[in-house]
């Protein structure tokens, strides 16, 4: 139990406000060395969890941003084709045997390590591997990831199998635009991160923005919380709340007024329709 409270404090030092549930999940990640899958709406700080955790562990953060069409060449490794060609050219006249030459150009010097391979081959300590927005990638990639997450090894035909010396702490995030496969979910610890309640959000804003006045923070959070209740095209996340409070501070507003809202609404609402609608209802 002390460990969990320690995690909360450690994250707080890194400007991340975590509740007990999230801290318990992170504790399990460290304890069981299982990947953590965090799902939730955009802008609630899913990615930040990994950043804070890496800082807390003083471990390198390796990040893989997923997108449609992400393939193994961009995610795992790729041979540096141009360099290999040059290598062949340079060796053309040398008396080395053919097998030697081949071993040379398929050596580690010619290998471009991509995030997943980097995470596996870390030398000193376990890195934090962040696989961001996994729901954007296609199912084939997910299937591949399954293999990696259970065995923590990667096979490169020309080099052999590389097995992780230090297992990375893996954090996967998803916006849930599509359901991830059950097999993948079962390999992970699961956490759902939702919009924070009023009190927590105020403390996040204060943590992030030093010197913000209590009144302004309260007002901004109350407003954003109300906005989230409405049917908007893009519901503002915590990052929007922070941006908004920051821009209000920059403009020298000490409390919310009609004018202040109109000036800065673009930092909270990111869709023209939403802005129009909210402005009309002011």
């Amino acid at each position, binding site marked *: *139990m002390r*460990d*969990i409270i320690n995690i909360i404090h450690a994250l707080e030092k890194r400007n991340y406000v975590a509740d*007990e*549930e999230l801290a*318990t*999940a992170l*504790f*399990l990640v460290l*304890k*069981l060395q*299982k990947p*953590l899958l965090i*799902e939730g709406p955009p802008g609630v700080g899913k990615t930040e969890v990994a950043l804070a955790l890496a800082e807390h562990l003083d471990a390198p953060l390796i990040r893989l941003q997923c*997108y*449609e*069409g*992400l*393939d193994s*060449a*961009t995610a795992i490794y790729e041979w540096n*084709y*141009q360099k290999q*060609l040059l290598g062949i*050219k340079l060796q053309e006249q040398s008396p080395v045997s053919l097998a030697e030459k081949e071993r040379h150009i398929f050596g580690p010097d010619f290998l471009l390590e991509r995030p997943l391979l980097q995470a596996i081959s870390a030398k000193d300590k376990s890195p934090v591997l962040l696989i961001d927005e996994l729901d*954007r990638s296609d199912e084939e990639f997910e299937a591949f990831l399954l293999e990696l997450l259970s065995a923590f090894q990667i096979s490169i035909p020309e080099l052999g199998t590389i097995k992780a010396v230090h297992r990375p702490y893996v954090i996967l995030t998803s916006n849930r*635009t*599509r359901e991830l496969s*059950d097999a993948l*979910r*079962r390999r992970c*610890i*699961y*956490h*759902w991160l*939702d919009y924070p309640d009023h009190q927590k959000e105020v403390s996040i804003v204060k943590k992030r923005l030093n010197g913000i006045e209590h009144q302004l923070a309260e007002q901004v959070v109350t407003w954003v919380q109300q906005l989230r209740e409405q049917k908007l*095209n893009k519901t503002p996340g915590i990052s929007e709340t922070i941006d908004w409070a920051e821009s209000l501070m920059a403009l020298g507003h000490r409390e919310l007024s009609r004018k202040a809202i109109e000036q800065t609404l673009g930092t909270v609402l990111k869709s023209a*329709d939403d802005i129009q609608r909210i402005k009309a209802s002011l």
Partner: protein
Amino acid sequence: MNERQFPANGLSDAIVSFSRFLREQGFNVGIRETQEAVRVAADGLLQHKFYFKSALKSLFCRTPEERLRFEKLFLLFWRKDPVELNQKRSEKNQQHKANQAPSTAPTLLGESPPTEEELEAVKSTTGASASEQLRKTDFSKVADMDAQHLEELSEQLFREMALRLRRRHKLDAKQGAIHLRKTIRRSIGFGGEPMQLLRKTRRPGRRRLILLLDVSGSMDKYSFYLLRFICALRENFRQLEAFVFSTSLVRITAALQESYLEFALAQIAAQADHWSSGTKIGACLQDFVDGYGKEMLNGSPLVVVLSDGLETGDPALLHTALQRIKGRAWKVVWLNPLKGNPNYQPLAKGMSVALPFLDEFESAHSLESLLKLEEMLGR
């Protein structure tokens, strides 16, 4: 269910029983999850009920809906504080080992096991299974109470679908076979070394989508959701043309351009006083071919007709109209909400005439059936 089904002689046993209990409730909890939970608990790391619960929650749940249900099931199962109970037990063990008989071992289920009704209550109060159910419900059979929920659900699902469709078009340049001719041409600059490998990629298609929605009386219950569906598609297909018809044809593409669906619905209602009255499918499709055919039936578009096929006009008209559309379209798809009924047969006057011209004939009666169309539209 009674206590004997989940006997427990300690925290580890209790966790095993709890995972069995969850499994019975439809959770996908395997042996590995149970092992991990036992391991965490056995290390004595979770001396507090709250952390104990959160730990089990992150290990056993896979979706936010399951997390909601878990809260209630956890309370049902662990009527007493499990950790506290365990501690007491071990104290007891040390003090009066002789007194300890297996029959008096405290059951972790507490005083009484959960009854069937209590379990039912957990099921019905959760959004998860309800949403799951609603996805499959026929639009015409939705109770008033669920209508709002269904509306929200449909909006969310359609939005997600549009997002997925948009993303599908982004092809990676690194895929595809090597384009030999281009690669060799480019290699000349490097003295014949193929330094850059150029690959063939498929250009993402920009197909035009034409939607014809039946808004006659018989379609009343469906047309609202189908219109929402059309709005969601608009986000993905730049070249989307939408029409509504019953006794006459009205083009609603412009109305959809306003991104407010409510506004669009009001506009359509104002334009079409025939909203929810008899149907002349053939005549309307004929109007479409005559009036817009030259302009829109180019570049082999995808034509989707959303109608129940209950024709009150002349079926011969429908025959010729569809024949002409078929000749110039890439595909003609008919979505019929009535097809959701397993006993349905396309015997209606309009439907039987139309069938030979259709590439696909699908149902469109529930959210799930509409979402299935994503595959087809993504191509």
